[in-house]
């Protein structure tokens, strides 16, 4: 009898397990814990993966696997002739998530859009500082306060952004994570209850997945939102299993504890590729590793010296040794996946003899300089110290002595951006929004000196081209202007464009329809699991 009972119980458990298996679950071994779930003030890629790409939508979004801007919560928009007014027509019938802590009574309206931006923008907005010590870094970083004049409600489903001056990248900015649309109705409910902080821990959005549970530093659970405006997702449950160590992530994927993972350690890629149950997707990252000369410091103020020093570096050896096959020679500042990339640019040649002659012709002999090495592994440069050592050896061959210097990461960047910094400075950039302006203006405009223009380079012609490209919204015209900018950059060589890295995404073969984003985020919208 007892045996019978045990058998029955066992059968019941098995039946339950089988029932549970019918719900399609995708487990993503994510690389870090999110700070919270309100994308507005957040900055980390892992924060955005866990919030804006699951729970929320934006007015416009990047097409899956591309940097092209497509309609999302706004189904259409118009830009005024002077480029200063953007009118968005909202999609009717977009539902917010129903949660145990919030039941929406209305669909998305212009009020939600206005609330989303005003809380980031207006210091007198109650939600501007709803968490202690919070900052809106992306809203500030993308210069939104400078460009926004007003955001007006035309009617419930129409909203107009008025700018202070034309700014072509604005549309791409609005597709960024910080611009995720939040619910004003939910905010009002929390304001009434007094628990404003819940806005960041119990999120409500319009996105493909709704929040279920977060166990600190362990696991985040989401469920497909049944009333999602693009239709319910193919998978039922999405789980983020937070696994910080890259090798452990790989082991978990191999052991079947997760279905997909980001950022494998370079050493694990071959093992993962060899596993017959796995596929390793790869793509060029939207990034650039570069080395900024200080163009105000002699002899680096002479473009001939800069070009000669670049010519003395064996870039292909660096890419092979440091990027280990996961890098690509960068001949321009922007990566080839970005529109306006100038493929006509000639690649840098390695010619130590010619470099030595050019240095001598410029009157540079026995040059001793500092060479700054990135202290941390970055997507665009896996090992700054090693790169510096290789360059040090290359430069020694042309009679240049380089002393490698480095500091803790934030300290490093702080010291590097000082206009009187001595020596070439190794750094890099990962694109935010797929717009070339995000590279050219952020890194090399005159106004970025002392902020992120590590070359202290201010070139009149380059500046004119990139500023003109910013104020026109005609793609062909912008492309022509950015081509000019790339030609000037190459002729002046304010920085050595080192490499664009490749990004890898290992997953089980049963994972279907995953698109790698060139912007480096991880979205599971539309992803399915083969049964």
């Amino acid at each position, binding site marked *: 009898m007892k045996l019978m009972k045990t058998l029955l119980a066992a059968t019941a*458990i098995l039946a339950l397990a089988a029932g*549970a298996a019918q719900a399609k*679950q995708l*487990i993503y071994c994510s690389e*870090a*814990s999110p*700070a*919270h779930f309100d994308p507005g003030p957040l*900055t*980390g890629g892992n924060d955005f993966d866990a919030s804006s790409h699951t729970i929320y939508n934006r007015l416009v979004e990047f097409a899956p696997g591309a940097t092209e801007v497509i309609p999302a919560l706004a189904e259409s928009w118009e830009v005024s002739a002077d480029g200063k007014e953007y009118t968005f027509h909202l999609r009717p019938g977009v539902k917010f998530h129903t949660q145990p802590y919030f039941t929406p009574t209305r669909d998305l309206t212009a009020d939600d859009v206005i609330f989303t931006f005003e809380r980031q923008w207006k210091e007198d907005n109650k939600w501007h500082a709803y*968490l*202690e*010590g*919070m*900052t809106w*870094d*992306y809203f*500030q*970083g993308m210069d939104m306060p400078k460009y926004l004049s007003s955001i007006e409600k035309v009617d419930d489903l129409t909203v107009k952004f008025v700018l202070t001056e034309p700014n072509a990248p604005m549309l791409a900015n609005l597709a960024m994570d910080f611009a995720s649309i939040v619910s004003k109705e939910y905010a009002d409910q929390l304001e009434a209850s007094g628990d404003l*902080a819940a806005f*960041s*821990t119990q999120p409500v959005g319009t996105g493909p997945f709704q929040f279920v*549970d977060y*166990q*600190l*530093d*362990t*696991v985040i*659970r989401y469920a497909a939102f049944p009333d999602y405006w693009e239709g319910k997702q193919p998978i039922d449950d999405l*789980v983020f*299993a*937070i*696994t*910080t*160590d890259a*090798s*452990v992530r790989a*082991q*978990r994927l*191999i*052991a079947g*504890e997760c279905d997909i993972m980001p950022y494998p350690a370079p050493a694990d890629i071959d093992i993962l590729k060899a596993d017959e149950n796995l596929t390793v997707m790869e793509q060029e990252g939207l990034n650039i590793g570069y080395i900024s000369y200080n163009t105000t410091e002699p002899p680096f103020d002479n473009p001939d010296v800069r070009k000669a020093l670049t010519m003395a570096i064996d870039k292909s050896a660096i890419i092979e040794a440091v990027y280990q096959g996961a890098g690509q020679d960068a001949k321009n500042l922007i990566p080839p996946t970005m529109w306006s990339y100038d493929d006509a640019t000639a690649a840098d040649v390695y010619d130590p003899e010619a470099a030595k002659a050019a240095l001598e012709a410029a009157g540079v002999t026995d040059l001793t300089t500092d060479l700054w090495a990135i202290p941390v592994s970055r997507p665009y440069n896996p090992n700054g110290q090693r790169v510096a050592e290789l360059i040090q050896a290359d430069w020694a061959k042309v009679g240049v002595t380089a002393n490698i210097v480095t*500091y*803790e*990461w*934030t*300290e490093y*960047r*702080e010291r590097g*951006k000082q206009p009187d910094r001595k020596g070439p400075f190794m750094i890099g*950039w*990962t694109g935010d929004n797929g717009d070339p302006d995000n590279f050219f203006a*952020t890194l090399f405009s005159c106004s970025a000196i*002392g*902020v*992120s223009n590590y070359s202290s380079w201010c070139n009149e012609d380059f500046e004119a081209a990139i500023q003109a490209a910013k104020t026109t919204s005609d793609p062909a015209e912008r492309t022509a202007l950015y081509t000019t900018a790339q030609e000037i950059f190459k002729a002046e060589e304010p920085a050595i464009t080192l490499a664009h890295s490749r990004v890898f995404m290992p997953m089980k073969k049963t994972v279907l329809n995953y698109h790698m984003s060139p912007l480096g985020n991880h979205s599971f919208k539309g992803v399915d699991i083969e049964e």
Partner: protein
Amino acid sequence: MAVRVAKGKDPHMLNYLLRRLALIVPTIIGISICAFAFVRVLPGDPILAMAGQHGVTPERYEILKEQFGYNLPIWQQYFDYLGSVLQGDFGISLATKRPVINEFLALFPATIELALTAMFLAVLIGIPAGIFAAVKRGSWFDQATMGVALTGYSMPIFWWGLLLIIFFSGYLGWTPVSGRIALSFFLRPITGFMLIDTLLYGNWPAFVSALRHLILPAVVLGTIPLAVIARQTRSAMLEVLGEDYVRTARAKGLSPRRVVNIHALRNALIPVITTIGLQVGLLMGGAILTETIFTWPGIGKWMIDSIFKRDYVVVQSGLLIIALIVMAVNLLVDLLYAFINPRIRVQ
């Protein structure tokens, strides 16, 4: 003759307790200064770390500095901090904006569960191994045990953990790679102790899963304490076995088993208990590495993540809370020691 446990009120015991408690105040102040200074000695800047790759303009940097109080003189920052801590306010995490104490309480059970299991394994194996090695002094068992213990003591935890994962989880597939429980189980925490919670839910398969997840990290974390306990037990046992009263017991014709278990062991265990108490600090240190390798969501991993984020508030308050706990455990062990060894109280 074995030491008798004192019964009833004892003025020496009270004195001892008061003396120990009085020492706590300067120690806490010392620790708070160390914790406060430590994060500030680290190169880096919390405001810049928060800002990401865009950085901040100098004007905005000054505004943020003021907002966080980093513009005040360092001594004033310290006294503000100490004042808050004394009122039980450990601050708000710079990264997550949640109260530090809430995060600590959410994560601490995971660390305790891991540390207790590790200690349980270490004691369960370490003490018998030590006794046996002492009794069979010079035998192959003694030499092998002490050799293994020395290796265990010198083992770099990070490497050892990865090695075990690759072998047991990757190659043999016997244990899970990381985490606290299989993700198919979705149980909201009750006590935060996974073994207890799964039992409270009456979910037997979940309990088994939690246990399987606990084995490797507990073995890794328990390795060094096990080695220390085994060596300490052996040497304490050897010392006691040479005492007169043991010889007397033997001369009385008691069985060797009785001599070891009753007469020798009780006295030999006194220094071993102190050693176990001292291992608590070591366990906290080891937990940082073990939790990081096994993605064990406890306070060790929390501290490491916070150091990388330059989350000053979490690091300084976390250090302080951990130090307080280690101090409390050490005090408890000392009292226990005094309780079972009256000689200490009078000294």
